[in-house]
């Protein structure tokens, strides 16, 4: 089926708009059209949410309930939140819209030999913006199979816009409820055998000529929560030559269990622990993907990636998310997702705040960085475009 007002496939070729798709949804469509391999899926647009809310008669009710709400009155907020969410989860979705969502889901399933589990997650219009992070405030549901479950959880995502916490947050920050909307992403669950993060700089010193990669077995949740030490590699960004490599212990992995429809933790054997979890080619592919993402977004990126079991080698690297690297780019730290919220990280394997490299040896450059750019007073230096002072300083350095 084709993308339309209510459904937009990642690869549907429609220009993504943040107000239609929310932050995550727009990002996934953008990445797909830029040739960055994200797991396939579609977005249930804000237009669908808006029409549902309107036609089901919920909008008017909400404005009434929220009118004079006191954010400090937690019991009252909880009551209002429950009422609104009950409305959203129970009132009927217009038939034509519902039919389109079912068709989209079936279209997605038809791409695989057998139906695969999907993740359903909210994609708020204000989320993921570098300066106004709502990260962790909406919900994510994993391992869903069959449309009844998917449809039900799309509504749960919609409802998550009105959790007590979200209501209080908006009240306290004077964010109006008018125009509030929510898109929902339906995406194939990544069946990660190895996953991790990559940054298009060296977080130890902000050096933009490097790509830093953390990688571990299974989905990345244990990396995020610090339960395993991942492999950490630094590569030269231009030539992709390895600069440093630290093999992490990676003592355990979270892997999808088809029968339990969830992740199970298991021990990693000694042999797999002791070697790097990525081959040279895979490492290079991750770095190249990070580079593409940076080139596309025109600023340093922090990407999340995974190698998918369901896809053939060489074609199994998936880009889960790419976001601006904020620590060094904006000189301020990112707000980490609260652990245990089951955010985006757990859906697709890794956390929304990437684990920082344990330590990359020898990053501090010796010498005085100013030395090379200082121009000596020698009149000879100007004309030929070289600096004698710098040449002298260069020779005098303690080491090269």
């Amino acid at each position, binding site marked *: 089926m084709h993308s339309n007002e209510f459904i937009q496939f990642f690869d549907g070729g429609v220009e993504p708009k943040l107000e239609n798709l929310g932050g995550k949804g727009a990002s996934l469509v953008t990445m797909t059209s830029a040739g960055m391999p994200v797991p396939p899926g579609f977005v249930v647009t804000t237009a669908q949410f808006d029409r549902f809310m309107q036609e089901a008669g919920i909008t008017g009710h909400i404005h009434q309930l929220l009118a004079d709400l006191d954010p400090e009155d937690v019991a009252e907020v909880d009551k209002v939140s429950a009422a609104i969410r009950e409305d959203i989860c129970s009132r009927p979705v217009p038939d034509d819209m519902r039919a389109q969502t079912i068709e989209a889901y079936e279209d997605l399933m038809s791409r695989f030999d057998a139906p695969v589990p999907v993740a359903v997650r909210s994609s708020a219009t204000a989320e993921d913006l570098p300066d106004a992070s709502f990260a962790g405030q909406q919900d994510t549901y994993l391992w869903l199979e069959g449309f009844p479950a998917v449809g039900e959880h799309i509504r749960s995502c919609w409802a998550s816009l009105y959790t007590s916490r979200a209501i209080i947050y908006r009240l306290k920050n004077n964010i109006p409820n008018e125009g509030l909307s929510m898109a929902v992403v339906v995406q194939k669950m990544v069946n990660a055998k190895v996953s991790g993060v990559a940054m298009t700089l*060296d977080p130890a*010193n902000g*050096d*933009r*000529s*490097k790509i830093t990669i953390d990688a571990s077995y299974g989905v990345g949740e244990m990396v995020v929560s610090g339960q395993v030490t991942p492999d950490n590699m*630094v590569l*030269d*960004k*231009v*030539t992709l*030559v*390895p*600069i*440093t490599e630290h093999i992490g212990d990676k003592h355990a992995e979270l892997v999808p269990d088809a029968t339990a429809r969830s992740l199970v933790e298991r021990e990693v054997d000694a042999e797999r622990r002791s070697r790097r979890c990525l081959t*040279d080619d895979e490492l290079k592919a991750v770095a190249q993907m990070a580079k593409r993402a940076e080139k596309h977004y025109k600023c340093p990126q922090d990407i999340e990636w995974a190698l998918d079991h369901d896809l053939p080698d060489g074609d199994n690297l998936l880009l889960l998310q790419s976001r601006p690297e904020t620590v060094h780019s904006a000189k301020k730290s990112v707000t980490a997702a609260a652990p245990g919220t089951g955010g985006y990280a757990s859906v697709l394997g890794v956390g929304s705040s990437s684990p920082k490299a344990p330590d990359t040896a*020898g*990053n*501090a*450059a010796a*010498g005085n*960085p100013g*030395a*090379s*750019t200082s121009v*000596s007073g*020698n009149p*000879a*230096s100007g*004309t*030929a*475009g*070289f*600096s*004698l*002072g*710098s*040449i*002298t*300083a*260069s*020779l*005098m*350095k*303690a*080491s*090269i």
Partner: protein
Amino acid sequence: MSMKSFPKPSELPVPAGAEGWEKIYPYYLVFQDKLKDQEDAKFWFCDSQHWPTVFKPFETIGGEFAVKCLGQYNSRHLMIPNANGIEFRVHLGYLYMSPIPVPEDQIAARVPHFEQRVGHYFQNWEELLKQWHVKVRGTIDEMETISFKKLPDMVPMEDITTGKAMDGSEVLLENYDRLIQLAYQNWQYHFEFLNLGYIAYLDFFNFCKEVFPNIPDQSIATMVQGVDMELFRPDDELKQLAKLAVELGIQSAFANTDDVDATLATVRASAGGDRWIARYEEAKDPWFNFTVGNGFYGHDKYWNEHQEIPLGYIADYIRRLDEGQNIMRPVAELVAEKERIVEEYRDLLEGEAQAVFDAKRQLAATAYPYVENHNFYIEHWTMGVFWRKIRELSRMMHAEGFWTEPEDLLYLNRNEVRDALFDLVTGWGVGAEPIGPTYWPEEIERRRGIVNALKTARPAPALNTPPEIITEPFTRMLWGITTEQVQQWLGEGEEVEGGGLRGMAASPGVVEGYARVVHDSDQLAEVQQGEILVATVTAPSWGPIFGKIKATVTDIGGMMSHAAIVCREYGLPAVTGTGSGSTTIKTGQRLRVDGTKGTVQILDDDAAPAVAGPGAHSHSHV
């Protein structure tokens, strides 16, 4: 951390039969008993990159001229603030070097002189380099005019009638002195731009290391290295000749290239053969002034005197062309890749830093190619002519009965040759027998025995206690003598996974293949398509081999060694400076060469040999 030490010179065992070796070299080249304390306090590293095998006494000339002239530019011409020249000694037949720092309190005073002098060169680079070519070519042309003819039985009548009043022996003596002088002259010129090339490179290198911490050395080298350099020209000429032969359909003329005359006669007799011969003659001058070695040994074979070597390469190229292979270097791809690398690093910088990057790279890209290109003019061309003249002199004196083998002159040092010449002209002048034929054959036999005995031992990589950190810029850059390298030699370096060798990551890429160990250029014909070349050191004239092999491993050499440059040029992985690759690895072993990490693994080795640095241990290597 307390540093382990290398052996003291006096602790190295003298190989059996080499006793008394000190006396075959000039007194000033060997460690002195009376200076033992001072000399033992210094760190000396072995330059086996340029002098991989034992010097015959005459051959120290190359080492002496080269290292002396390198030093003079640091300490007398350019006034490098913190580095004087390099002291050197011959020990047990090998050359050891020790860089001389400038005392702290003198550094500042040298800076203005240094900047004035270096500034002048960098500002007038093109013009001065043009002059350099004229000067060097002039030296070579004059050398070519020198000859060592047998003295006549009587002075020609013409000299009587013109009242010349000279017997001609003075010409012989002058020619010898002049030949030495001319070689010395071109060695001075050799370093006029070399140190400057390294200085410009170092300036860019340090800048890159500051703005891109840990940037691979390979990346920096790629950004300044010339892609199409003169060093590749002789090989390119052979490729063109092979293409022309295929074009003319005269491949069959190259069936037995060992017979040079017959091969050339067959070509000449073929249709279009004249055209090929004309092209061949054109290529010979000057590009066949190319040695299979490195120009520092009297036994080096030069293409123009051993045309079976270039003809053999041409035949091999013809075969590969007939098999449909592409024999040309991927120059366009290399240029494109180089430009991409420069552009991407450049784009990582902004504003002033980008401008500084441009200026420094431009200077390095202008000055550095000399480092690669001078080699043809001095080591190959100048030294080719020099050794040819020396052989002519040696044969003349051999005919006079001074020694038993035509090239035995090499067992005399150059000052003894002057004595022997005077001995010759004296005997000739007075009408008596010279003393040499009585004295030299026996002495030469004794020395031959010593040289052969010395050859049974490899040099120690270094002598005495190394400094905590190796800081001297030229030592690091020219010889790849880094703190890490020294650690490796001392057996304290990081171990290679699965056992194996570590060296410089000189040219990127990973391949597996079978080893072909080559100790001598005469073995090059054994190299098969797709093998991995393992050698002590490689020479520029091995170029044609690089089109056949998959990777290179050398014992000696850094990022800027010949093997490294050529492999980057051919897009082959290379690991240089492994210390012991050629002695650890055996022909036929399967290797995994990682030129990106700088490691070599022996994959299917039944009897894994112990891996060690070149060490002081002896082994047979002839």
